[in-house]
């Protein structure tokens, strides 16, 4: 399902980023205000905390056509709600292994900690995830599950 732009330029990965409000969103904002150039393939969804990210969000992103997903929040010990990221870390550890077990390539889901001062690191995360997904190509296997539906 190529967009008009993709028909001209080829495959452009669509990546959904679930980020926490306090660290990574602010870090991404810093990257923007610092005028850092990075790949434009990432759509950010801001949530209060990585602890708010239900693994079903990530599946839903794939269902709606994402080729890759980034999940990012505060470094350990930095959580605005004290322990949300620690809980999320356990959940993501299990999720990551399960997704690999059912056959989702590991490069499609990127987990990272990016603090409010790490605009540079956010750029690396975004560029890295985009490159990995670009190499893997469009997630046609997941889209094919829907049959002819978009």
């Amino acid at each position: 399902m190529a967009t008009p732009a993709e028909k001209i330029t080829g495959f452009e990965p669509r990546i959904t980023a679930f980020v926490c409000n306090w660290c990574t969103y602010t870090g991404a904002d810093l990257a923007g205000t610092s005028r850092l150039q990075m790949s434009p393939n990432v759509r950010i969804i801001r949530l209060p905390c990585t602890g708010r990210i239900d693994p079903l969000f990530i599946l839903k992103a794939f269902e709606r056509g994402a080729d890759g997903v980034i999940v990012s929040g505060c470094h350990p010990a930095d959580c605005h709600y004290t322990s949300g990221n620690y809980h999320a870390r356990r959940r993501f550890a299990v999720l990551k292994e399960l997704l690999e077990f059912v056959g989702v390539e590991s490069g499609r889901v990127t987990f990272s900690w990016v603090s409010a001062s790490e605009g540079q690191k956010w750029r690396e995360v975004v560029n890295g995830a985009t490159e990995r997904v670009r190499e893997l190509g469009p997630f046609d296997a997941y889209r094919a599950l829907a049959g002819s539906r978009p």
Partner: protein
Amino acid sequence: MRELQELARKLLADGTVKVVIGWEEGPHGVRPAFVVDPDRADRLVFDERCTHNLASYLSPRRPHLTRLGKPAVVVKGCDARAVAGLIRESQLKREEIVVIGVRCGGVLADPSTAEPLSAETVADRCAGCQAREPHLADHLVGEAHPEPPGKGGRDARIGELEAMTAQERWGFWQAELARCVRCNACREVCPMCFCERCVADKTQPQWIESSPHARGNLAWHVARALHQAGRCVDCGECERACPADIPLGLLNRKMARVVEQRFGYRAGDDPAAPAPIGVFKLDDAQEFIL
């Protein structure tokens, strides 16, 4: 067997419990039984056909059973883990139930079969079982049995899957999940699926498509496996109940292995052990996080 029937009769007669949940002889092998009359306690049986995990009937989402009054439940060692799980997750209070433990020497994969226990007929989870005597029990009955036969093929199968490429694994699971008719038998039979309202039943927003369709099937089985991570007691009921023979035990076993390896937790029958998803350590491994 006599010992079990006598104990059930006594508990019912002296009013300690109102119902004894056990197994009885049915038209197609053994089946779950709910004995409320002390004179009928001789219906109860226990042998290698008693595969069913009766802890499912303790779940608070079965009010028609809780209305019967205080239950005594007959459990094997593996089932006792589910009772402990329900207590651990505040679904049940220990003093609200009486636990009758039976010593077990392995059960048949199919409770309707009349064949003796052998390496071919034994349930896969029984090989190398470490929980053949429930520690949680108030009363422990039956004699000690020899170790169950069989080697258990699941870990080898998981190893084979892990050795495949991601595309091959995807193909394997798509072929398996394509048979799913979304009857929810795996959920209904599971003692640890105790949510009053399942995420799969929610429609606004609908997280998991409810029709038997490849996309919804994948979402359901991934969500189920995740919710069972650190919760599954490996009683094998989901796989036995599945009319489409989907190897759900592989997903559960994989999750159990991840939880044990990462968080050092193995499902046991100690209700005081904290559930691994729900607690954390400051130094949990995070090699997968950039």
